[in-house]
């Protein structure tokens, strides 16, 4: 099958280009996109991409596959639109390319850091641990599972236009994860930090984030919850 890969080495190339490879894929197996990349690498060792766990838990191999963001390791060819005829792999859109399929996630992590992704609680710590009722714990389902692969934020037009100012779906999902945690006491400050016209409100409800998340999470819904909290807090 034909595989077309985005190539760019800033040290030697003036411009990025697409390079085509012919790869033999076994007809009886539904390979993952990452497997195909590995076959390409057998032909050409200079092709660069990130991967680690190869089972959808580390979030390293977020890629743009035939136009849609996803994790190479858990995206079977059968799920790629037109993937049986031709596979086109590009880096995640909107982030600076370091080399080939490897992007600089700096701005993505900066947005994550901004929402203070840790529990804040200034009450004296109990002897063993801060308890949480099963009901309160349940509120974190669909939030804590995020692996920060950046598939969502890099598919979001609002994040492309304002990556420095709009927190983006991944960061906002985590912002809500801590806003919703019964053990966190910094709700007010967290909300105050989000009440500007960019951090949350740049979300236009396009829902690209929801359609690409490989973990099936729903950042748009979380953003809606944050908006309601901001509204309830300020009216």
């Amino acid at each position, binding site marked *: 099958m034909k595989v077309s890969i985005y190539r760019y080495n800033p040290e030697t190339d003036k411009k990025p280009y697409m390079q085509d490879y012919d790869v033999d894929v076994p007809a009886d197996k539904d390979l993952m996109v990452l497997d195909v990349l590995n076959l390409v690498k057998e032909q050409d060792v200079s092709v660069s991409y990130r991967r680690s766990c190869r089972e959808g838990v580390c979030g390293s191999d977020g890629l743009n596959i035939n136009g849609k963001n996803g994790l190479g390791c858990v995206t079977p060819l059968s799920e790629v639109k037109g993937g049986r005829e031709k596979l086109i792999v590009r880096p995640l859109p909107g982030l600076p390319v370091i080399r080939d399929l490897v992007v600089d996630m700096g701005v993505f992590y900066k947005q994550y850091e901004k929402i203070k992704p840790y529990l804040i609680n200034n009450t004296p710590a109990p002897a063993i641990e801060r308890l949480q009722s099963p009901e309160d714990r349940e509120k974190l389902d669909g939030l804590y599972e995020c692996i920060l692969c950046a598939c969502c934020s890099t598919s979001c037009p609002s994040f492309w236009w304002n990556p420095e100012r709009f927190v983006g779906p991944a960061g906002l999902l985590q912002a809500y994860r801590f806003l919703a945690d019964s053990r966190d006491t910094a709700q007010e400050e967290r909300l105050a930090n989000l009440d500007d*016209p960019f951090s949350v409100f740049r979300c236009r409800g396009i829902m690209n984030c929801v359609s690409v998340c490989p973990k099936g999470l729903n950042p748009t819904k979380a953003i809606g919850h944050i908006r309601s909290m901001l509204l309830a807090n300020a009216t």
Partner: protein
Amino acid sequence: MVKSITNLSRSGVSDWLVQRVSAVLLALYTLFMLGVFWATPDMTYELWRQLFSTFWVKIFTLVTLLALVGHIWVGMWTVATDYLKNAWVRFLVLCAVAVTAFVYLVAGVAAVWGV
């Protein structure tokens, strides 16, 4: 907290509320106007004038006019901050939007109050 000094109210949530509430008002006014035209198939200048000299129609029109100005600003400001990356270009475009919205407001108030 991201700093911004050109949006309508400094606060994201209140801009957002303005945008939603003004959208509802604009929709209601549009329905009202469609209703008026539907109920009076042969509209004359006299009837039109009579309509706009009614106190509540004046109030409704002016409120909608204010909503329109708010809606224009929040919307155009958002579009400008998405797509215009040069700060000077953005500032000039926003100035033009502000002047236009102001002209709408003054001309609208003058027209409605003049009846």
